Each structure stands twice: as C-alpha cells, then as structure tokens.
C-alpha cells in the first residue's frame, strides 16, 4: 500500500488527492498544511475582506472532501524538514512522517522588500485566509479610513477593490509606470486605470514606498508612507502586494534541483525520484514560451497537481502546459489576458488591435506565424474561450484573422470546416 504525503492543501494539493484516488483507492494519503482550514479558495480572500463572502462560501470543496477521498488532512502542522534518504518529512514538533511518494505543493509567499517601518502595526500582506482575516479585523478595530496598497498587480488590484467596497480611500503605489503591467499593454492599462480612478482610487506609479511612518500619537501604528519621490501619503493601513515568491525552504540544501522555483519535468517530478512538486512552488511548462517558468495561478496549480497525483499513483501522465492567463473582474471592467499579451517589439509577431474608446473596449491579438500567441480583451470578454481554444490548439488563423476581432465574434464567423473539426457542430 503506497504512502502518499502531500505538503500543502491548496489548489495543487487538493487536485493531487483527487487524481491519486482515481488511480489508487487504497494507498494512504496524508496532506499536511500549516493552515487552519484547508480546501478554501485563495482567490476569494478579497471577497472575505469586502464582506461578499464568508468562510463557508470560500470553501472550494465540501467539508466531507477529505473523508470522501479517504485522505488525512493534518491541519495547523508545519513541515520543517525533508530527508530524502530516509524518505521522511519532519514536522515542527519533531514528528517524522514517512512517504513513498511526496508532493511539495507549498505554494508561494508574499515578497516583502526591506522598508523602514515595516514592523509597524497595520502592515499586511495578502495571500491567504489568515492575512484576509487579520486585515478585516483591523479594518473593524481601527474603523480604518485610508490605505496604501503597494503593488498594482493582480493581488494589489483585488485587495484595492475590497477596501474600496469597505469605504476606504486607497492609494496604490506601483514601481512600474503602468498598472497590471504583467498582463496589459500601455493602452489597456490606461483604460483600466481610468476606470479604477473613477471609483476614487489614487495611483502613484513609477515609484515605491521608502518608509512607513507612525501615527503622531502612536509611532508603533501605521500613520502613513513616504514615497520615493518624497510625497507623504497618510494612511491607517499598508498592504504589501508586490508579488509572490515560491516557498522552497523545504528543499534548500537537498538534492532537489532548484532554480527560482523547484525544477520539474513534464511529469511534475523533481530531480529526485518519488519527489514531485506542483503549483506556485514549481517551475512548470509554458506552452507559449516553450520553457518552464514560475506561473503562480490557481487553474494551473490544479492542472499541475492533477498530473503529479496521476504520476505518483503510477498512471503516467504528461503535463500539457499552461501560460500566463488571467481573468479579472474588478471595478466592473472585466478583462482577460493570456500569453504574450504585451510583447516587446518583435518583427516576427503580428499585432491586431481594435479599440472602442467610448465603451472602454479594447481587443488585441498577437500572432506568430498566423497562430495566436497572445490575447487581451478589456470589457468584452464574452466568448474569450473560443480565442483561447484557437490559441491552445495552435489553429492557423491566416484566412480569417480579421474576423477574430469582430463585435459579433463567435463560432459562426469561423470557417465551417473548423467548426466541424473542433466539434462545435455536427
């Protein structure tokens, strides 16, 4: 009877449990997480802060999930050691847990650069449930009126919306000149920024926070920040949302090969047999860039965890790859960005753009050799999946590329032969 041990119970860990059980119904599965609640949706933590979701709504699996899958979830336990020779992991209290197959799905942790005053009461990061709970409690306790969010990426914008919904005045500080710069080109970024500004949010781009200062009456509590250009922004809260870095501590100093994240092959196995890695901690395959890289995204963590689980249980399964892909719902301006959404000048790429300024609509496709390799849709994401399907399937779009940006875009505007080939119609 195989012994599976999974460290981490978020997207990748949960998907691995399901995958193992499809192949092996009897092997023991132990899932170890330092969190108090497993099986919740991390992307929903901003809804917890805004008040839109409670803990029950945030659960992405039923409470009976672990029991149904005959898996033991050990909550509130931190894994601190890995012994590849004995094939054991060590918990904080010294307990050793033996494995035959190990999955490291420890995820990422927020990157917090050194800033003067960062130890002050009122400074938060924003990646997991306890971050969100502490932030929500602080807002209530302080009756907070203002916040500075450092970082205008996905997490920064999501927490900004939650704070705005709580009636808090937010200033977003971003080192890049444009917000959401990993997802959007300058034009798309400007459209989204203008919409968020209308909701009352201030942006300070092209700079960072040099110092967090205290309140006049209490220097230990956050009272404001001083930006690198010298401006002072008073605030009750600071949320650091610069990015996440892989939690690789467990494999440091071991034979498990590490780049920025844990290096894995197409079967999600690390450089050490029987040790697998998935999710934000691993460098998995990007089918657009044709290389492995960090892609800390929930849907990809699920796919990677599933592949790891299958292989751990003996069903050889290859990972088809993912790419940078996000769908954002914030501030009432939905947007989708996939693949090379904002490529540098490259003569081998063809860019198709359509903009409707009045309606904040922006569509952009990036083609290489007539295959879609990047797409951005702002405020017009209906049927985005069809374009993603063409991208994923590497369909040559040469004959109908202009139709891809039509307002009435759908399967009907595409060639009948393609509709049949892709099983859209019979």
């Amino acid at each position, binding site marked *: 009877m195989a012994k599976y041990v999974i460290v981490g119970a978020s997207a990748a860990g949960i998907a691995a449990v399901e995958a193992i059980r499809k192949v092996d119904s009897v092997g023991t599965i132990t899932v170890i997480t330092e969190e108090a609640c497993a099986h919740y949706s991390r*992307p*929903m933590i901003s809804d917890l802060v805004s008040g839109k979701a409670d803990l029950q709504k945030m659960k992405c699996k039923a409470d009976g999930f672990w029991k149904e899958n005959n898996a033991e979830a050990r909550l509130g336990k931190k894994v601190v050691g890995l012994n590849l020779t004995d094939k054991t992991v060590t918990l904080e209290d010294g307990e050793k847990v033996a494995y035959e197959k190990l999955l490291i799905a420890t995820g990422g942790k927020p990157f917090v650069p050194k800033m003067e005053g960062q130890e002050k009461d009122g400074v938060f990061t924003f990646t997991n449930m306890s971050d969100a709970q502490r932030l929500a409690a602080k807002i209530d306790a302080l009756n907070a009126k203002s916040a500075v969010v450092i970082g205008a990426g996905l997490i920064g914008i999501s927490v900004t919306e939650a704070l705005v919904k709580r009636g808090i005045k937010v200033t977003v500080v971003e080192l890049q000149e444009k917000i959401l710069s990993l997802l959007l080109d300058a034009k798309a970024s400007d459209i989204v920024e203008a919409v968020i500004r209308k909701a009352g949010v201030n942006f300070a781009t092209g700079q960072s926070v040099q110092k967090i200062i205290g309140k006049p009456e209490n220097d230990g509590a956050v009272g404001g920040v001083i930006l690198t250009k010298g401006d002072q922004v008073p605030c009750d809260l600071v949320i650091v949302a610069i990015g996440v870095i892989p939690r690789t501590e467990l494999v440091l100093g071991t034979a498990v090969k590490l780049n920025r994240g844990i290096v894995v092959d197409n079967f999600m196995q690390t450089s050490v047999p029987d040790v697998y890695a998935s999710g934000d901690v691993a460098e998995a395959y990007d089918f657009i860039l044709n290389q492995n890289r960090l892609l800390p995204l929930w849907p990809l963590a699920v796919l990677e965890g*599933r592949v790891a689980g299958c292989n751990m249980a003996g069903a050889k399964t290859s990972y088809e790859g993912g790419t940078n892909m996000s*769908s954002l719902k914030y501030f009432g301006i939905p947007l989708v960005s996939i693949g090379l959404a904002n490529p540098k000048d490259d003569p081998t790429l063809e860019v198709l753009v359509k903009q409707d300024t009045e309606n904040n609509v922006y569509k952009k496709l990036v083609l290489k050799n007539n295959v879609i390799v990047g797409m951005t849709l702002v405020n017009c994401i209906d049927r985005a999946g069809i374009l993603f399907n063409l991208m*994923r399937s590497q369909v040559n779009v040469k004959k109908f590329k202009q139709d891809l940006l039509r307002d009435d875009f*759908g*399967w*009907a505007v595409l060639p009948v032969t393609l509709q049949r080939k892709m099983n859209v*119609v*019979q």
Partner: protein
Amino acid sequence: MKKIIAKQEACMGCGLCEVYCTTQHSKSKDIVKAYNSEHPKPIARIRREVNKPVSFAIQCRHCEDAPCVTACLSGAMTKDLKTGEVTHNKDKCMGCWTCVMVCPYGALIMDKEGKVVAKCDLCQGISEPACVANCPNQALEFKEVKT
C-alpha cells in the same frame, strides 16, 4: 450521457431557443412576465450564433474533462460524476469569469446583473430541454452521445 446537439443545416437562426431557455429559467415560467417584469432579469443559457447563411445554437457541452471545472477558482463549477453533467452553483460563484476565459465553445454566459456565470443545466426536472422541445425545425436534438 444525453447531450444537446446542434444541427447547423437545420437551424434557421430564429432565436426561439433563447426565448424558451430564458422563460424556462425565469421565476414565473411565463414568457411575457419573464421578459417584461422579472427582476433580476432571467437570461438565456443558450446562444444563437448567426453569420448568414450559417446559424446554430451553442450551449454547454458538459465536457468529459471540462476546462471550466478545472479552472474554476471558487468550486462553483463541478462535474457530476454520476450524471456527467457540469453543474454550476451560483451561490458559490465569485464571478471571476475564469470559466469564460477557458470554455472552448464560448458557451458560458456572463450574467452581468447578477455578476455570476449562467450556463445550460439541461433543464432539470423536465423530460426534454426547453430549447430542444421548442425548436421549430428540429435543429436541436437531445440524444445519447459517447463521451
């Protein structure tokens, strides 16, 4: 499992599938009330695509390995392993539109008023989905297909 299949050559693009789908998913199940007086406004989970002379209707295909289920951030989208149906729990939906981004058929509908996704549920509780039953030219079939 039984699925709804569109026959492109038989579709006239009349849009009655959308009308009956909307009505079936309304509170009143009354065509006039559904369109004129219900709030939130019921919406069709089937979409007619027209590019003359081509037209056909698209709705959830209840994919075997459904990309929307894998991608769902909240756990709202699930695959019922017994029936094969892809089901959506709107109370759990966070309206992130990730499923819209990955659905290969473009079959998931954004309920912009409710800020959640809406999709075909094969009209649970009635013998034949409303779009199939009311298609005047039998351009939609509800039949057993290999998954």
